[in-house]
């Protein structure tokens, strides 16, 4: 059978700073045009001034009807650009795409919503923008309102909606589209957990109904659950194309080999995802373990971990706290260590460079990668916060001393199993006769 979607050698070039040709002011345009005849190599001149960037490079794959494809990759790998090209929002620089079915794309929740229009009006507007016919929207109207749970506010302008209501309504409209190919980008990252579940359920229904779905998400569990096939993008190229399970595995193995983050010492001045209220007070984070093992390789389960957080206080205070959050690869918080809970703090007011040490005698997390969120509170309010400040890898290891590495679950706890010696058994409690009688 011919594939419903064929992507052939798609490349997309952007020019950094100013995107793709254009976006010049009149003055620049005239300057360039006027100077052109006097320049030896006008193209080279442009190349020097502007850095080119290939968001996608020779991307090819095809999708069969009814397939549910997950597109996985880190931020900036080119996923969104790819979806935009498939949705015809922007043109490829080279290559071509063949579509053999009607496509609807949902790159953002609530596209075309107008704050002044009521919920009812926005359902029609949004539906029309996403490619639905008026009659279709009327037919689905009740189902949409039902799904969004906004009956009471149907005739209220959406500017008065809570953000939760807004998102629910927006997703509800999109969920009732009936295209042959549905393209969804990360829209599930919004809303509360219950509604996210509902959305995922709806997505599952859509895929089960035999429609073709292209799904981009950072939620690996969702990708594994919904998709049969996974394509992994890395720096604009397809680096993996296979089952969703293997795709997720490939993606995650790429993450743990990411350079820089896991090490003895991380300089925080280069942190990307940072929220500093005034100054960047957090300076450096150092890790050590008692085994003398090189931390760049990872820790074994149950190792001691000593974390030294270097930071600075600009004003003398005794009221400050440092926190460390351990998040797993699904972004779930597994463990929080905060000085807030430390009962034996006895220091007075301090100022200037400080080192706060967190001593974890036994880090009993399951094998895997953990991303650390680090924050500093001063006088009970957040002063500096860094997401993904460092990464810790816990290696498969023989924690229980049985020659087997544990699996399943989030952490290990010291525990023992044993059979009670037969002589101790209280016969009156466990008599088969009593059980029979109960049955």
């Amino acid at each position, binding site marked *: 059978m011919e594939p419903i979607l064929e992507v052939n050698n798609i490349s997309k070039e952007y020019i950094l700073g100013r995107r793709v040709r*254009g976006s010049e002011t009149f003055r620049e345009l005239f300057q360039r045009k006027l100077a052109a005849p006097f320049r030896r190599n006008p193209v080279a001149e442009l190349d020097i001034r502007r850095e080119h960037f290939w968001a996608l490079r020779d991307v090819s794959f095809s999708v069969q009807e009814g397939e549910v494809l997950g597109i996985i990759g880190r931020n900036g790998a080119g996923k969104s650009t790819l979806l935009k090209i498939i949705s015809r929002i922007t043109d490829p620089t*080279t290559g071509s795409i063949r*579509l053999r079915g009607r496509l609807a794309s949902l790159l953002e929740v609530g596209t075309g919503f107008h704050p002044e229009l009521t919920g009812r009006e926005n359902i029609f507007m949004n539906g029309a923008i996403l490619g639905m016919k008026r009659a279709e929207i009327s037919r689905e109207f009740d189902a949409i309102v039902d799904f969004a749970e906004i009956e009471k506010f149907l005739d209220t302008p959406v500017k008065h909606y809570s953000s939760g209501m807004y998102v629910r309504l927006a997703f509800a409209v999109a969920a009732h589209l009936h295209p042959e190919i549905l393209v969804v980008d990360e829209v599930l990252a919004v809303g509360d957990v219950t509604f996210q579940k509902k959305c995922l359920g709806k997505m599952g229904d859509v895929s089960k109904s035999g429609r073709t779905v292209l799904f981009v998400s950072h939620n690996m569990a969702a990708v594994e659950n919904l998709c049969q096939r996974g394509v992994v993008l890395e720096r604009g190229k397809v680096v993996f194309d296979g089952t969703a399970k293997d795709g997720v595995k490939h993606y995650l193995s790429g993450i743990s080999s990411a350079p820089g983050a896991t090490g003895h010492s991380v300089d925080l001045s280069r942190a990307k995802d940072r929220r500093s209220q005034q100054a960047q007070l957090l300076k450096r984070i150092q890790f050590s373990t008692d085994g003398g093992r090189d931390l760049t390789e990872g820790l074994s389960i149950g190792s001691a971990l000593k974390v030294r957080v270097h930071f600075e206080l600009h004003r003398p205070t005794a009221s400050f706290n440092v926190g460390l959050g351990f998040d797993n690869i699904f972004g779930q918080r597994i463990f929080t260590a905060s000085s807030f809970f430390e009962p034996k703090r006895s220091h007075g007011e301090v100022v200037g460079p400080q080192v706060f040490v967190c001593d974890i005698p036994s880090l009993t997390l399951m094998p895997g990668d953990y991303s650390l969120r680090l924050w500093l509170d001063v006088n009970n309010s957040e002063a500096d916060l860094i997401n993904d400040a460092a990464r810790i890898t816990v290696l498969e290891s023989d924690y229980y001393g049985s020659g087997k590495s544990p699996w399943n679950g989030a952490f290990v706890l010291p525990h023992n199993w044993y059979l009670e010696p037969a002589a101790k058994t209280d016969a009156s409690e466990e008599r088969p006769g009593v059980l029979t009688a109960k049955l």
Partner: protein
Amino acid sequence: MSTFDLKIRPKSGWQPLDLPEAFLYRELLGFLIWRDIKIRYRQTALGGLWAVLQPLIAMTIFTFVFHRLAGVHSDGPPYALFAFAGLTPWTFFATAVNQSSNSLISNQQLVSKVYFPRIFIPLGAVGALLLDMLLSILLLLGLMIFYGWALTWAVLWLPLFMLAAIMSASGIGLMLSALNVNFRDVKYAVPFLIQMGLFVTPVIYPASYLSSKWRYVLALNPMAGVVEGFRHALLGSPIHWNSTAISLGIGALLFVAGLLVFRRLEARFADVI
């Protein structure tokens, strides 16, 4: 699987208009117009009354300043009617050009997040103002009864001149909206140009003030013919058909040029906006 088959490939150069696709999305054009009408007067106390108040106030001021003080005379009907009949298409044109030239920018989210024929965005902005023009025409008919000025059979020409007004406004609006994506200078230039335009369009004065040579120069302005035509159709004023025809022809050319320029620049809207 449906018979749907589409090939996406890099586009460059001049693009033809995709009429079948525009037809497929025709309902959306209606929705965009409806939305613009709905939100235009939301949260205003006077609401849709603004559509008739604006030309009415302008008419009063024009009559006082240009007729009473400066001594400009109409070519037949009472000056107030004369001014209002000119202001009706001119206000439509000025507002439509202004709104449509900014339409892509104010709908950035739509342009960068969802696909549909982009041409509908500036066209929708123009279409939403048709209602105002119709209300204004109705008001003029009321004023004519008030002044005891009779309608003639020339009114049958009105649809033609309305179409010409729509084409001129859309042509310029399409062109400017596309340029506005790259050059935000447009946003600042448009109000100024519209103000200038009022003086090279026979809104305040009758075209018959000019010698026939200058009338042909005036005809290069597409709105000159439209304004003259509106007065002929509604008030029965004399019309100079040769210069009017030229003017309408230029309006039609502008419309085609607007479509072409828009289609040519369309491919990179989402990347640049």
